[in-house]
């Protein structure tokens, strides 16, 4: 819908009005077409801007994620530009709206690569959206594609690089902690799609490796808005610990139901952070999870950056569950790779990405593990508090992605 919008201010106005109305789309197509002529070719002069496309969901079901993504992308690009840009050239950021709809993602991605001729595209929210655009961007478009979403793993497409967490990075330290706390029997549950299934597969493997036993594993439909049967099954399982991957909105009645229903074991998952905890109310107390960032981690650089972000975008959402640190990380690791390559030439940047590494990142140092197309992340184990904040239990240090892209 926002397909032809390349001017940022127009996009901002549009996001408030709401994309998706066919009428609005047509209207904007008509007025957006005039600025197609301003696009230059690849390369260009030394102070010619480098065009970077950011694709996310500013409207529709994932609209809040998109708001967060857009804010951190603008913040990061402004910061890079203020410090001399990339190879001395400023970045021109073009944000497009996929409207939480894979078909729209395909349309706006095509415009980023063919009309706007961007050098790189960053952004994914759901795997369905990533699948819809990767061949358009990174295949035929031959454009570098950076995926910041934390997801189920396994994305090894050409020219495509993942900077979000894969299951083992969150699951292993969390399960290890539960085992350390003496948990032996585990109940697993989640929504029925690839991310929860892969996370719980990783959890089951780690549990059984560590001598624990899985006493039940259940899934509810993706569309579920309530989960009373999972609450019952969790309570009657009498497991020492629960590992759950239930997405909003059903996670709220699930957590409240389990806690209020008198379940006494530990509750862990991959989807807890400061942006989601408040929804659980006081029942958030004691939930366990590992993330690449919590607001309470003790890292001076992270604190300084997040404070600067908050000052500039006081109303924008920011958090690990919204992939905010990953967007920041993705843009900087790309900057490092381009500068190491000395140009934006695709092959050269791909080679440099393979071993790109950077320390001054939100959440801590990160690097691509050569041959995996995925990143090693500094992870933190947190205990959620009744007020929604997170008590950091442990700085887990660097966690490698496991089993990605035929790493030897």
């Amino acid at each position, binding site marked *: 819908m926002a397909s032809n919008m390349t001017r940022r201010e127009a996009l901002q106005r549009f*996001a*408030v*009005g*709401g*994309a*998706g*109305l066919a009428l609005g789309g047509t209207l904007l197509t008509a007025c957006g077409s005039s600025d197609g002529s301003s696009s230059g070719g690849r390369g260009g002069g030394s102070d010619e801007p480098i065009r970077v496309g950011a694709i996310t969901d500013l*409207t529709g*079901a994932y*609209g*809040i*994620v998109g*708001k967060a993504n857009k804010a951190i992308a603008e913040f990061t690009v402004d910061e890079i530009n203020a410090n001399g840009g990339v190879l001395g050239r400023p970045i021109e950021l073009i944000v497009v709206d996929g409207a939480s709809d894979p078909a729209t993602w395909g349309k706006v991605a095509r415009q980023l690569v063919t009309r706007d001729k961007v050098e790189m595209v960053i952004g994914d929210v759901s795997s369905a959206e990533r699948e819809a655009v990767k061949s358009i961007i990174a295949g035929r478009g031959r454009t570098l594609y950076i995926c910041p979403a934390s997801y189920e793993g396994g994305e090894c497409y050409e020219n495509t690089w993942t900077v979000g967490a894969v299951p083992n990075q969150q699951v292993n330290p969390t399960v290890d902690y539960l085992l350390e706390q003496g948990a032996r029997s585990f109940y697993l549950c989640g929504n*029925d799609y690839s991310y929860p299934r892969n996370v719980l597969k990783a959890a089951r493997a780690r549990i059984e490796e560590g001598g624990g036993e899985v006493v039940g594993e*259940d*899934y*509810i*439909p993706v*569309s*579920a*808005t*309530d989960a*009373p*049967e*999972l*609450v*019952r099954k969790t*309570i*009657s399982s009498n497991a020492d610990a629960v590992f759950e991957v239930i997405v*909003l*909105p059903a996670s*709220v*009645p699930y957590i*409240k*139901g389990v806690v*209020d*229903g*008198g379940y006494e074991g530990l509750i862990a998952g991959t989807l807890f952070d400061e*942006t*989601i905890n*408040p*929804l*659980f*109310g006081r029942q958030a107390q004691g939930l366990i999870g590992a993330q690449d960032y919590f607001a309470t981690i003790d890292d001076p650089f992270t604190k300084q950056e997040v404070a600067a972000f908050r000052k500039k975008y006081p*109303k*924008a*959402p920011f958090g690990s*569950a*919204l992939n905010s640190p990953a967007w920041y990380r993705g843009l900087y690791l790309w900057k490092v790779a381009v500068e190491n390559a000395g140009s934006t030439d695709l092959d050269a940047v791909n080679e440099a990405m393979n071993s790109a590494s950077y320390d001054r990142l939100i959440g801590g140092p990160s690097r691509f593990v050569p041959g995996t197309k995925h990143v090693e992340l500094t992870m933190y184990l947190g205990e959620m508090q009744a007020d929604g904040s997170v008590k950091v239990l442990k700085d887990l240090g660097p966690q490698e992605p496991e089993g990605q892209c035929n790493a030897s």
Partner: protein
Amino acid sequence: MSPETIRTIFDVASLTSILVLLVLGMAVIVGMMQVFNLCQGELVLLGAVVAYVAHEWLGSVLLGILVAPFAVAAFGAVLERTVIRRFYANAAGALLATFAVGFLIRAIVLARMSSQGEPVPAPIDGTVGIGGADVSAWRLVIIVVVVLAVAATYLSLTRTAIGLRVRATLDDVELAAASGISTRRMFTGTYAFGAALAGLAGAMIVPLQALYPSLGFDNLVPMFLSVMVGGLGTLHGPLLGAVALGVPTALLPTWIDSVLSQVLVIFAAIVFMRLRPGGLVNRDI
């Protein structure tokens, strides 16, 4: 009875009552008025918004729940006068127009939000012990409110003079107009009444989840399915449809996989609609 059994029965009652509550307003607008109102979910959302705003500004969710039906009814009345009215004779137009209205409401709510959801606490928190099982106090309140709301709606439509006029208008508009009933006002009032019930539903269920833009939209499929299974033209048809859908949806996962049970329920509903296109309650047969 074991606490497990009590908890199961309670869950069935809770889930079914929530679906009945969501369908109640739709039973009036879609069932009785036969307007294919795709923004029904957003009328529910607006009820939730009222509860949230009352919580944020006045510190009282309860006040929000009391105000929500009136606020959403007022919105519904304006919507009927400006948009819905134009599409009584044009079902496809009504679908498109109400979808657009729903989309706009969702987009506006999204634009005003800065988190994945806004928590709204239940006016009554905690649990109540029933025969050794701890059940959610707020869900118990919802069950009671649903019974009262259904009874009040039924009685006001069947036992009051206004209800009789509403039924007469929906039965035969031309005759109603010829006999001095101001049918425009009846349509506005009936739509507003259906909107009020949707608003009540939204305000009651938002403490169970959280305020988020697709709060109502996410429930639109089971809501419409209830109406189709129950049959058009009456109030009680869609409500029976909601019970017919809600009970197995809540009960089957006790024994079989939740995902499979959802597929089975929807499949059974589709087969039922093939065999009996008029629905459970159909006076034309």
